[in-house]
């Protein structure tokens, strides 16, 4: 059978939001998509883990917002959301926390009743906090018997430094020292107008917008959160053994910079070529040629005050050394020979396809918007991003790779055999 002709692919249309401000200046971004009868509201705060001075306080605050408020118990909150089938999610990374409510359009009112309580009036009740901490302490203990968790932690502290806010890990016992008082302090410093914005997406009318705006307007003013980001203290190599491991979890990283740096997009393209899709170099080499692993990946990670290039795989224990050698062979290859035009064209298509898939469905545009706003950009950044990817040349990529992807700047971490 003859291969079908390839129809030209038009770049995805990036939805543009409207922005308004609540009375206290907190921005609200709205994205309308009226086809599916669902609404999502996300509240975003400059309240990630790198802002905490007490271990686990940032994540505990966001995770216990729904454990009880001035007017509702944790049970009532859970009950109220579950009754209308609304979906609640509290998420945190190193720089931001995001609290999301998602509901059928017809149930947005009761959902926002609860959102208002959770965002504005959490009470961090003593008993619930103690129960949460005990549970999380135990769960962290369980997580820390898993190679992927150990690997993530070892990599973070080896890349940034043991005491760096982006790399620090704390003992499970630190949960014992958390008090409602400490949580309230963190909440007050970060969950305020100076550190917040919100995004509504999906199928909604002006009354929803007004209600969300009223919630934002009730946030106290506050002042913009800041924290000290010390210089990195990377180590070149770290290894921890895990009894009985049949695989090694390998991560190789290079500390670099955030998305605002002009080389960031070229590095995203390089990371995609290296390990961002099934046909990528690492996947072909480590999985398809050698069978060392089920999957090998690479990515360029963006943080507010930093960023890094990372490659990773879980490899057969007996092939750990060979696998690491292949990682470095690929790193050297990408930094010494220009990418062929054909390969680059595939990488471009992978990236465009990924963006198109994000925009399939009513909420992808909200995620893209949140990320752009967090980085101080507007949604035309995504257009700029795609244009940059479309026009970048092998020579430019090689120059960037030569500049940044050097073996002697790598941090290698291994958990396992």
């Amino acid at each position: 059978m003859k291969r079908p002709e390839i129809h030209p692919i038009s770049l995805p249309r990036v939805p543009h939001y409207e922005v308004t401000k609540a009375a206290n200046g907190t921005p609200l971004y709205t994205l309308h998509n009226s086809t599916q009868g669902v609404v999502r509201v996300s509240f975003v705060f400059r309240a990630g883990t790198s802002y905490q001075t007490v271990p686990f306080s940032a994540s505990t605050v966001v995770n216990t917002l729904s454990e009880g408020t001035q007017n509702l118990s944790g049970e009532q909150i859970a009950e109220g959301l579950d009754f209308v089938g609304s979906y609640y999610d509290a998420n945190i990374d190193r720089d931001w926390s995001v609290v999301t409510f998602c509901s059928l359009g017809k149930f947005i009112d009761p959902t926002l009743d609860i959102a208002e309580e959770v965002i504005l009036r959490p009470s961090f009740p003593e008993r619930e906090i103690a129960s949460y901490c005990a549970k999380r302490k135990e769960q962290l203990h369980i997580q820390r018997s898993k190679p992927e968790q150990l690997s993530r932690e070892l990599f973070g502290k080896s890349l940034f430094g043991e005491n760096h806010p982006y790399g620090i890990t704390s003992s499970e016992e630190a949960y014992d020292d958390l008090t409602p008082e400490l949580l309230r302090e963190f909440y007050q410093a970060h969950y305020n107008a100076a550190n917040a914005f919100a995004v509504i997406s999906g199928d909604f009318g002006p009354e929803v917008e007004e209600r969300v705006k009223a919630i934002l307007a009730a946030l106290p003013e506050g002042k913009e959160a800041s924290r000290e980001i010390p210089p990195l203290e990377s180590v070149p190599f770290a290894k921890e053994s895990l009894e009985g491991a049949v695989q090694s979890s390998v991560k190789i990283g290079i500390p670099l910079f955030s998305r605002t740096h002009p080389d960031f997009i070229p590095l995203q393209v390089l990371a995609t070529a290296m390990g961002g899709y099934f046909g990528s170099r690492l996947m072909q080499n480590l999985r398809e040629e050698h069978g060392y692993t089920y999957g090998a990946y690479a990515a360029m990670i963006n943080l507010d005050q930093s960023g890094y290039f990372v490659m990773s795989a879980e490899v057969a224990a007996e092939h750990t050394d060979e696998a690491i050698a292949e990682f470095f062979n690929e790193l050297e290859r990408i930094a010494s020979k220009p990418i062929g035009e054909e390969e680059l064209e595939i990488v471009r298509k992978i990236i465009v396809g990924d963006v198109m898939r994000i925009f399939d469905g009513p909420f992808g545009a909200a995620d893209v918007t949140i990320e752009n706003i967090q980085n101080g950009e507007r949604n035309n950044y995504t257009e700029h991003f795609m244009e940059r990817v479309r026009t970048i040349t092998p020579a430019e990529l090689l120059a960037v790779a030569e500049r940044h992807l050097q073996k002697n700047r790598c941090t290698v971490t291994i958990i396992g055999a």
Partner: protein
Amino acid sequence: MINYKEHLLSNGLRVLANEDECSAMAAVNLLYQVGSRDESSERTGFAHLFEHLIFRGTKSVPDFDGPVQEVCGENNAFTTADYTNFYITTPKDNFETALWLEADRMMGLDITPEKLSLEKSVVIEEFNQRFLNRPYGEQWHTLRSMVYTRHPYRWPVIGITPDHIRDASLEDVKDFYERFYNPSNAILSVSAALPAERIFEAAERYFGSLPAGRANTHSQESIIEPAITSPRRHTIESNVPADQITIAFLMEPRGERGYYLCDLLTDLLAGGESARIYQHLVRQRQIFSAANAYITGESGQGMLILTGQITPGTSVEEAEEALYGELELLVKEPVGDYELRKVQNKFEANITFGELNVMNKAMNLGYYSMLGDMSLLNGEIELYRSITAEEIADYIRRNLNRNQSATLIYRSKR
């Protein structure tokens, strides 16, 4: 609510089309009615190994991924006990590339000894990563072998042991391919902002000339797993971080009323933060640091699972009592209308949230077509709405007691 049209090719390929309203993407889903239940007990894990192999190229398309990537597409696959599912998403104008690729590999697969040997090592690493190199990793192997004595559900999709994967021969590969990978045994479903007629016409063009082959009737379908009649228990002492208890009950096949009762029942127990197990046993009594209840969802006799990781200082016996206590409570005080409505609302919302992109819609179409009753596609919510508190109490009384259970306990040596 997923709208669809259906068309049958003369070689037996079922084609379903959902006309999406707005997406720029098309999703093409191809489901083969073959899963780990069709394996011999000496060659377990084979259906999954084969799913990997079918990406290894044909004579005319040696690199499957290349053409997908050239149209900004993405593809993947998964294997279950009952079926093997392949899907490709592309910008909608290029959906024919996906049809062409799937039709091509339904006939012309080209597996060499080298390709087979390489794929075996990849799958063995998957086995290691997901089942051996992690705490509690062997739990499903153990639990399934306790619950099932005859039915092929007694092994997990990955297989009983990596040795079975090592032993797979090129002969096995050819037999399996001929037996199961043909139009009569497949369901093609497409969701895209395209007219159904256009999708059917293209399906005819790419698949119409393939020889029909035979539909798989799941030779093991006649195997009925006998009921559990006395408690089955097994304890593993190992280097796990916390004690854990998992209680399994044998269920009725999908489509039967008991299936929906169990699904709804586990949602009462663990469907969301407000559900009983979480509120009573995790939050209030702090018996578990994490606990769950769910059904495994096979189309045949699957399992209803109650499980939890036990907090330090709580005994396994107390934890077990507490789980049964929740079941007994539903018998003693049948669940009220409010709570029943809550889980029914949740089903409705989850169904809506699950239909937000073309891929989920195409996948659902294929799955419900495989079940053989398309009325379930949009009709299951009514089934859930018809369930009563008395029915649930009655079901628990008859089916969910210690005599009908298999219990797997992990004791931590820490």
